[in-house]
């Protein structure tokens, strides 16, 4: 993969989620602001989907982000972008939110399809 050599610069963990998820994970210390660039986005019911999409694309194209955490219900709104993201870095992880607990994502049936 072409991006492997640049992974050493990737240190930040980004978060796209509702206010509670972002507040909680920022309390854990992942928040970073560098001028206009932030590594978090608070999504509420007034946030347009285009803004979520643009932020996701921005986070996944930045060279300093290693992991992107995104609430599952927010990821469902931009499912086409999340599914199309096949780069090693940044790694995208869907996390549950307060109002939308974790739903089982069927992913690891790969081997059984080929047995």
């Amino acid at each position: 993969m072409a991006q492997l050599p640049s992974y050493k610069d990737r240190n930040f963990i980004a978060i796209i989620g509702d206010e509670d998820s972002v507040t909680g994970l920022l309390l854990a210390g992942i928040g970073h602001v560098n001028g206009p660039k932030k590594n978090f986005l608070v999504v509420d019911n007034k946030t347009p989907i285009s803004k979520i999409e643009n932020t996701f694309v921005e986070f996944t194209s930045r060279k300093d982000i290693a992991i992107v955490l995104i609430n599952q219900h927010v990821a469902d709104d931009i499912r086409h972008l999340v599914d199309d993201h096949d780069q090693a870095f940044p790694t995208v992880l869907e996390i549950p939110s307060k109002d939308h607990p974790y739903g089982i994502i069927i992913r690891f049936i790969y081997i059984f399809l080929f047995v």
Partner: protein
Amino acid sequence: MEEICIKLDKVLLEYMDLISIYQENWQKISKDLECGYLQLAHSKYTMGPGRLSKDQFDGRMQAVTRSLISEIEEENLKDHNYQFTLINGYLENDDIIPDESESNQINNNSSTLRRRNIKESETEPNVKTKTEQPSKKQIVRDPIHWFGLLVPSTLRESQKHFKQSLVNMVGLLNIRNEILMKEVQFKKLKNQKEMIMQELIKSKESINEEKKTQENAL
């Protein structure tokens, strides 16, 4: 052939083990997040409306918790051979915070409570290892102080749960990479097995043909 079958079985068993560990990890993360959200909601109730929201986020925040990516040395596995590590502290290549002197003055003038909670990392020699050392003279600020000096204990509990869930999330990503590596390994072994099977079939066919020709000759 037998060796490859044994290896395939071994990889499959390890794969299943990793999946069950993955599921267990997810349950831990869900529990930690649940407790974190509950304590956060309790803190919001205790502190009152508008005291715990995105408006209180510090506009100069610097990431205290970061992740480092390192390579795992595996044979012939180019993809997914990396691992995440969570670290606390600033890195050497960080830009110095522009208003650091200002924040220092504020810290000096503030109460002893704030001074007590601030840690200063000392200057350290540059050692090139897989994990980098914290940078010189960076003040590690606890994000909990954005919401006031005297915060309720439920907010501290919430912070603990979110920190723990973050550790588990990074662990989960490493397990996910191991699972993907196992898939690649399984596929390779299966391809090898199929090649050996085809060779065996070809050699059997050639032996049968030879026998037929010998019989015809007789």
